[in-house]
C-alpha cells in the first residue's frame, strides 16, 4: 500500500529534476539527489563568528541569485571540523586556508582549488608584540631571535597564516618552540590573538596580515599597546575548494558558473563592494591546486600533513 505514494513521489522528483536542469546522461537515475538539496558552503572560523555570519549570509544571498540554487552557509566550530564536513560531503564548497585546503583536497579525490582573492597570491603573516616587551620592529628574519624567552601564541592549530607559516619562518630563523617561555598558546582565531597580545596574556603573537590591517583600519586595535614587529615574505593562502560531485548534483558546468559568479564581483558596485570589503579583497581571481605545493611541503615538514 505504502509503496505507491513513495513511487509517485520519486517520479515527481525525477520529473521536477528533469524540468530544472537536464540531468547529465551519465547519471540517468539519481533519485537520491533531489533538486531540493541546497548548495552548502562553509568556511574556516578564522575570525569573529559574528562577522563570519554576516559575511557569509551576504555571500549566500549573492550566490543564490547568481547560480539559481538554494545556498546555505553552515557555520562550523573549528578548522579541522570544516575539513571533515567537506570530506563527508555535508559541505560542497569551503573557504579554506592554505593548509586546510591542502588537507581537504588530500582527503577528497578530485576536489579542486578554484578561486582566491587578489591578496591571497601574496599573503603574509605579521608577528605582533606587546609594547611593554620593548621588542623593536626588524626587517631581517633573524630578528625572530628576539622571541627567545618570550610567551607566544599562535592562532588555530590548523591556520596557515596563524600557525603553519609563522612556525616555518621561526624554524628558518633557528628558533625552536622550546626557546619560548612556556609552551606556545593556540588562541583559536586571529582576532583573539590580537586581543590576548594587546592585553598582555601573551607577549608576542603571529597572525594573518589582512585581519590585522582590517582591525587597524576599523580602529579596533590599541596601537599604543601592541605593534607589528615583522612581516613574513609572501605565500599563497586562502582559497575556495569545491567537491567534484557538485556537477552531478547541480548540473554540468556548475563549477565554471561558480567561478564566473565570484569573478563578477566588482568593487565599483556598492552591493558587491560590501562583500569584497568583508573578505578584505578587491576582487576574486582563479587559482589552481599546483599553487599550494609549497604549503603542502611545509605542512609535511612541520607534521600537519601526514
Amino acid at each position, binding site marked *: 500500500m505504502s509503496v505507491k505514494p513513495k513511487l509517485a513521489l520519486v517520479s515527481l522528483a525525477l520529473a521536477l529534476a528533469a524540468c530544472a536542469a537536464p540531468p547529465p546522461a551519465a547519471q540517468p537515475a539519481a533519485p537520491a539527489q533531489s533538486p531540493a538539496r541546497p548548495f552548502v558552503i562553509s568556511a574556516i572560523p578564522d575570525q569573529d563568528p559574528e562577522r563570519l555570519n554576516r559575511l557569509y549570509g551576504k555571500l549566500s544571498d549573492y550566490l543564490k541569485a547568481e547560480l539559481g540554487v538554494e545556498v546555505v552557509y553552515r557555520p562550523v566550530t573549528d578548522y579541522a571540523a570544516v575539513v571533515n564536513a567537506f570530506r563527508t560531503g555535508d559541505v560542497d564548497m569551503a573557504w579554506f586556508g592554505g593548509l586546510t585546503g591542502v588537507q581537504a583536497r588530500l582527503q577528497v579525490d578530485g576536489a579542486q582549488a578554484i578561486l582566491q582573492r587578489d591578496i591571497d597570491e601574496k599573503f603574509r603573516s605579521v608577528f605582533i608584540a606587546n609594547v611593554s616587551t620593548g621588542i623593536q620592529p626588524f626587517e631581517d628574519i633573524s630578528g625572530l631571535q628576539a622571541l627567545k624567552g618570550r*610567551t607566544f601564541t599562535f592562532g588555530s592549530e590548523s591556520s596557515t597564516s596563524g600557525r603553519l607559516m609563522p612556525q616555518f619562518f621561526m624554524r628558518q630563523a633557528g628558533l625552536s618552540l622550546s626557546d619560548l617561555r612556556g609552551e606556545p598558546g593556540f588562541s583559536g582565531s586571529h582576532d583573539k590573538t590580537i586581543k590576548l597580545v594587546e592585553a598582555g*596574556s601573551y607577549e608576542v603573537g603571529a597572525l594573518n596580515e589582512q585581519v590585522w590591517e582590517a582591525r587597524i583600519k576599523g580602529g579596533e586595535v590599541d596601537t599604543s599597546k601592541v605593534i607589528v614587529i615583522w612581516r613574513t615574505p609572501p605565500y599563497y593562502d586562502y582559497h575556495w575548494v569545491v567537491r567534484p560531485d557538485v556537477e552531478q548534483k547541480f548540473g554540468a558546468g556548475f563549477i565554471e558558473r561558480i567561478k564566473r559568479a565570484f569573478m563578477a564581483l566588482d568593487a565599483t558596485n556598492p552591493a558587491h563592494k560590501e562583500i569584497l570589503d568583508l573578505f578584505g579583497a578587491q576582487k576574486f581571481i582563479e587559482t589552481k591546486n599546483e599553487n599550494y605545493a609549497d604549503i603542502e611541503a611545509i605542512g609535511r615538514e612541520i607534521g600537519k600533513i*601526514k
Partner: protein
Amino acid sequence: MSVPSAAQRALPLPEAFSPWRSLLRGARLVALLTLLAVAWAATQTGVFRGDLINAGGWALVQQFFAAALRPELSPAFLRLTLESTLVTFAYAVCGLALSLVIGLAGGVLSSEVWWLVHQRPFVARPGSPWLIARGALALPRAIHEVLWGLFLVRILGLDPLVAILALGIPFGAITAKVFSEILDETPRDALRALLNSGAPPGHALLYGLLPRALPNLLSYTFYRLECAIRSATVLGVIGAGGLGYQVLLSLQSLRYGEMWTLIAALVLLSGITDWLSARVRQVLGAPARLEVNLAPGCEAQAAQLTRATPSSRGLLALLGLAVLVVPLALVYLQPDFGRLVSPRTQALLGQMLAEMFPPDLSGDQIARLLQLSLQTLAMSIVAMAIAGLFGLALAHPAARRERGPRWPYWLTRGGLLVLRAVPAPVWALLFLFVMFPGPLPGALALAVHNLGILGRLIAEAVENVDQRPTRALQHAGAPPLHAFFYSTLPMTIPQSLAYIFYRWEICARETVIVGFVGAGGLGRLLTEQLSSFDYPGLSATLIALFGLTFVVDMLSTVARRPLR
C-alpha cells in the same frame, strides 16, 4: 606490697585507640601511596616551578569579572540564550533516553542474576555469556563523550544525531554497569521463591526482582540526567551547538557580557536539574545511590533512615512528563536517523577504520605517548587532590542541617553549583588567561569543575549520615565542633574518600577535553593529531588513553577496597 604493683605494670595495655587510626586500619598503605602520588603529580605538572602565573593576563580577568555586573540582556541575545538552553536540554534528554535503552538491555544482560535464572536451577555460577556481556560494555565506557562525538561526526557528518549518540553510547554503557550492579545487589529471596514455584525466568524477574530494584534504578536515572546536562554542554563546546557552543563563541570573541548571561542560563539549567534529581532520589528513599557502589550495608541503612513512602501519584506524573519530553526533544532537534544506515556512513566508517590501522607505534611515538600519559595521569591526580581537599572542607557547610543559620548552606551550595555548571574546557580557557599553557591550567580547570560535583556528593553523604550518634554526643554536653570530629566526620570519611577515588576515574577521562583547548597531556596531542588528520597517530593515542583509563580504574578500585 610490690607484688600487685608489678602485676599492674605488667598488665598489657591495649593499643592506644584513636578514631583516625581505626579508620585507616587497612588503608594506611593506600593513604601513604596517595600522598606520594600527589607529591609526584604536583612536581610533574610543574606546581613547584617558578613561573606559573602569566601576570600579563590579569587585565583580561578583571575585564571578565567586571562584565558580571553588566551581562548582555538584549532581547535578541536572550532569545538566543533560551534557544541554546533548549538545545542543550534536548540533547541531554535524547542522549539520556538512548542511554536508558542501552542501559536496561545491557544492564540486564550483564547482570549475574539474569544468567543465573536462565540456567538450570542447580547451577551456582553464571557462565561465559555473562563475562562476554560485561566485557562488551567496558570499551564504550572508557571513551569520553567528546571523543565519541569527534569520531561520530567523521562518520555521520554534521547532524544532531552525532551528539545524541555521543552522549547515549558511553552513558548507556555506564548505566548498564550500574543497573547490573543494582540488579545483582537486590535481595533475591522473592525471585527465588517464584522460580521455585515454577515461574518462567522473565516472569520471575518481572515480579520478584524488578519492582524491588526500581527505586534504585529510577533514582540513578535521575542522577544521570544531571550528568547528561553537563555532558551535553561539553559536547556543545566541541561544536554540537547549545549553551556550551555559545559560551565558547563568546569567550573566543572576548564578549564577556554575553558570557555571563550564558553562564547564568547554565547555572539555572543545572540548578533546576540537580534540585529535581535530588528531590526524586529523596522521595524514592534511595538518595545514597549515585555512581558508586559503596558497602551495601551502608546503603540499606541510609535508605532506611530516609525511607519515605513515595507519593506514587506525584512520581507517576513526573515519569509521564519525562516520557513526553523525549519525543518533544526529538522533534526539536530533528536528528536524521537515516544517516545511521546510509551507504555514505558505511563508506566513511570503512575508510576511517582503514586509515586508523595499523596504529603508529614507532619508538618515538611510544616514548612520547608514555611521557604524555604520565603527564595526563599527574594532571588528573593534582585535579582530584585539589577537588577532594576542598570538597571535604566545603561539604560540611554545604550539608543541610536542622539547626543553625541557613546562609552557609545556600552560599556553599550556590558556589558549588556555579563551579560544576561551567564546563571544564571553559574553566581551562579562563585559567589560560593568566597561566602558561601546559598541564597545570588543565588540572586546575578539572579541579574546579570536579570540586563542584564532589562537594555536592559529599554534602549529600553528610546529610544522609545517621544523626543519632552526633545527637548523643551533643546531649552529653559536647560542643558542636567536638561532636562533629567524633561522629559526623569519621562516619562520612570512608564514603567521601570513595567518592573522590571514583571521581578520579571520571577525571582521568576528562583530561582529554581540557586538552582540546590547549591544556596539556594526551588531549593536547589528540587535538594536534585530529587537526593533522593523522589517523595512525590518533589510534596510538587512543590506545594510550585506554591504558591510562584502565590503570586509573584499577588503582581506584584497589584504593576503595579498604574503605568499604
